[in-house]
């Protein structure tokens, strides 16, 4: 009898252990809290920033990780991230030039390298009108710029992961384009996770200021060099002033076992043009948020993307285009290729405010399912409060066209070759929209390689 009671007590204790073990969201939030308090104790940061971080940490702690009942996370179970206790990242090693050349597709760009979330190699020889500093140095200098803009667009209140980022972000790029500056060569921000980031979380935070009538192309690359399981929680805030033109490409090529959450928040003034492209092939679970506000008359937004996953990868994109000002066009095309047991999610919203008359919004999401285990959930949404608008959206899900395959085979092309060609053609449709020629070619080659190996 007493043995039975003992056994029961043991089971009870084991259950209690399991509940408070490392594998619960509560435990990982507590771990974040401990890490935060420790950093806060020894912090020499300006007072305003410390109190902002504290309140961001409180927001994160009280809000917790979103459940699938949260409409924004309806199709993405964030538990693998929530239940994982990530350490603060260790300092990384320098990235070899061969590795960098691979990451850059052999191109010569204005490259800034961050390893494990910290600046490793600043860019040399920048043209006049372009300055790139690090967030860490801006914080150290307690600059007015950082005080006015850090976490002001992507606020801690806007979501769990922006709050977490605001609490922990220590470094990132701060890019300034002076008025009328035209930068020819793309600016490339490379975020590398090496062995020091294993089982760790990094929180890069970038700020981009494109002043009046400036023009530039920015590429953000997320890659692993020696890390396998880690968590990147990136935030980029972009301010596009009157008449400025910015192309912004994000290449998410994390390790296949990594976790990635990225938020891109853009504010567009009058006559500005912002083009975004999100290319996602990495991570076991990734979530990319692309949010832009068309705040000035006749601003234009182009949001495109291609996600290509396999195995048990989960890739989620959420976009939101806020039409606040009138006469703004927005175009959006996201395509997905899903193989293996992968799961693709697209959630796009076009929100038209009452004043945003003459809005012209187009949004499409097309998905190609290559295997019978892959799945897709897509939710393109329109919320419209102005009457003089033209808004359309469309979504498709399907597999390769049997008739097209048959046609190619009847012309002597083998089944597997035909399938590859058709898959490539599906992806090429959106890659063609890339305005940066070398990147377009590199990504096309990468897609082709993926489907010929």
């Amino acid at each position: 009898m007493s043995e039975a009671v003992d056994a029961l007590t043991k089971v009870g204790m084991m259950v209690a252990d399991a509940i408070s073990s490392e594998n619960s969201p509560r435990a990982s939030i507590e771990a974040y809290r401990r890490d935060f308090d420790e950093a806060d104790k020894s912090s020499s940061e300006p007072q305003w920033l410390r109190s902002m971080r504290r309140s961001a940490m409180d927001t994160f702690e009280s809000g917790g990780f979103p459940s699938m009942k949260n409409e924004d996370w309806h199709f993405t179970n964030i538990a693998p991230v929530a239940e994982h206790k990530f350490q603060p990242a260790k300092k990384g090693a320098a990235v070899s030039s061969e590795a960098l050349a691979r990451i850059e597709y052999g191109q010569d760009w204005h490259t800034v390298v961050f390893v494990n979330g910290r600046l490793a190699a600043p860019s040399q020889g920048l043209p006049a009108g372009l300055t790139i500093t690090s967030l860490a140095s801006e914080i150290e200098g307690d600059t007015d710029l950082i005080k006015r803009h850090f976490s002001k667009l992507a606020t801690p209140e806007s979501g769990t992961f922006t709050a977490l980022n605001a609490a922990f972000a220590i470094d990132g790029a701060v890019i300034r384009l002076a008025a009328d500056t035209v930068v020819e060569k793309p600016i490339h921000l490379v975020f590398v996770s090496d062995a020091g980031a294993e089982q760790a979380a990094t929180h890069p935070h970038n700020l981009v200021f494109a002043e009046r009538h400036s023009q530039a192309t920015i590429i953000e690359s997320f890659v692993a060099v020696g890390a396998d399981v880690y968590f990147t929680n990136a935030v980029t805030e972009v301010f596009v002033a009157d008449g400025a033109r910015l192309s912004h490409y994000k290449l998410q090529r994390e390790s296949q076992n990594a976790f990635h959450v990225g938020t891109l928040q853009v504010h567009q003034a009058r006559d500005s043009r912002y083009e975004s492209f999100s290319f996602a092939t990495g991570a076991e679970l990734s979530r990319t948020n692309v949010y832009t506000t068309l705040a000035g008359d006749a601003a234009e937004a182009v949001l495109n993307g291609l996600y290509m996953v396999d195995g048990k990868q989960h890739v989620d994109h959420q976009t939101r285009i806020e039409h606040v000002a009138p006469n703004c066009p927005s175009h959006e095309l996201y395509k997905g290729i899903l193989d293996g047991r992968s799961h693709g999610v697209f959630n796009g919203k076009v929100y038209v405010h009452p004043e945003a008359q003459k809005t012209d919004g187009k949004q499409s999401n097309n998905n190609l399912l290559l295997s019978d285990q892959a799945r897709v959930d897509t939710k393109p949404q329109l919320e419209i409060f102005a009457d003089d608008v033209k808004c359309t959206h469309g979504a498709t899900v399907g597999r390769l066209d049997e008739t097209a395959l048959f046609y190619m085979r009847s012309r002597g092309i083998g089944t597997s070759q035909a399938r590859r060609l058709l898959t490539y053609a599906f992806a090429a449709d959106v890659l063609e929209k890339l305005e940066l020629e070398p990147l377009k070619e590199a990504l096309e080659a990468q897609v082709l390689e993926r489907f010929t190996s």
Partner: protein
Amino acid sequence: MSSAIESLVNKEYAYGFVTDVETDSIGRGLSEDVIRLISSKKNEPAFMLEWRLKAYRRWLTMKEPHWGNLHYEPIDYQNIIYYSAPKSVKPLQSLDEVDPELLRAYEKLGISLNEQKKLAGVAVDAIFDSVSVGTTMKEELSKYGIVFCSFGEAVQNHPELVERYLGTVVPHSDNFYAALNAAVFSDGSFCYVPKGVKCPMELSTYFRINSADTGQFERTLIIADEGASVSYLEGCTAPRRDTNQLHAAVVELIALDNASVKYSTVQNWYAGDSEGKGGIFNFVTKRGKCAGVNSKISWTQVETGSAITWKYPSVILQGDNSTGEFYSVAVVNNHQQADTGTKMIHIGKNTKSNIVSKGISAGHGNNSYRGQVKILPRATNARNYTQCDSMLIGNQCGAHTFPYIEVQNNTATLEHEASTSKIGEDQIFYCKQRGLSAEHAVSMIVSGFCREVFQNLPMEFAVEAQQLLGITLEGSVG
């Protein structure tokens, strides 16, 4: 907004009269006793009471859903009268026994329960407040073995059918309003079409809320047995009152092998006044199950009334090769809000669904399309086509689209398209220079916009729907 479009005037709700019929109501509020009372008033067998109580206990644990794009004052569920019946209602032998006041009310509504309808070939079951008052053409239908009667009669005369099918599509625990309905529903229509029978005429129900402060909770159950087919029409009106009234109905459709059910609704509940005061809260659960192979269920709805509409007629495509359809026109004006759409759940192989939704927003109205298309792993070769278009008239209104597309089988083909536009100045100008008035031009453009849906309505309903649309939008183009 332009002056060219600024011309139509407000027309009052034509169905807003109150009929003075003595009613047999019970007190306000809801408890197990109320449910027992309703059940005993209806002289129900034990399984019904048990089912109701099960639903009520479940309801107590549920939360009112607030995920809809809707805004309204909280509803006090204890301040509603859950049962109200015209007093003279006893089992009716013929229409002569119906209270003449009631018949006059129906005449005002344009439905006469008598011979005229017989000539028109429509069998009508009219539901006044919560009780069915007369079913026409019963004899004619019984020749074919078709059972078409009030739900109450069905419980008395065909309890085996009711017990077998009730709650099989919308279970008592389905959602907050469905559970409430299951607990307190007082009547509704029941239809059973036996094997191989094609119902020779359109069946029709007319719902009317008359008493103040009553909720209407009717339940419709339609079963098309193997190889059977039936087309069913439903219309609704209510008097003008400046308090909100709750309407929480449940409709269940079942189509067995090779059967087809077509269900058409013209919903014109009182929508509240131009300030948004009063009107019906229409929180309805409608769902059909294509249980058998090659079966088909088709929903057509014209939603012009109600202060708030929360309604998603759905189809569960369980049988292989089954088909689900949803055609909808939803119009909001003044302060009306509609959050409506459909769900197509593909379970069987080669299942097809087709969704055409047209939303028109005017005044301060807000119209949301919310739809789900779900392809489960076993649903090989599923096919869906969705089109939802919105039209905005005026800059105070809103049009929203929330589609959910969930695909778990790669042989599926899905297409979703949505657009939002307004009536163009150029279109009006074109019509005017061809000699049409602005009013005419607008109504022509709107009916062109809705044509694909109206084509799916039975003839006499299509005419009514067109007129309703005109009335609802009057004054909105301003």
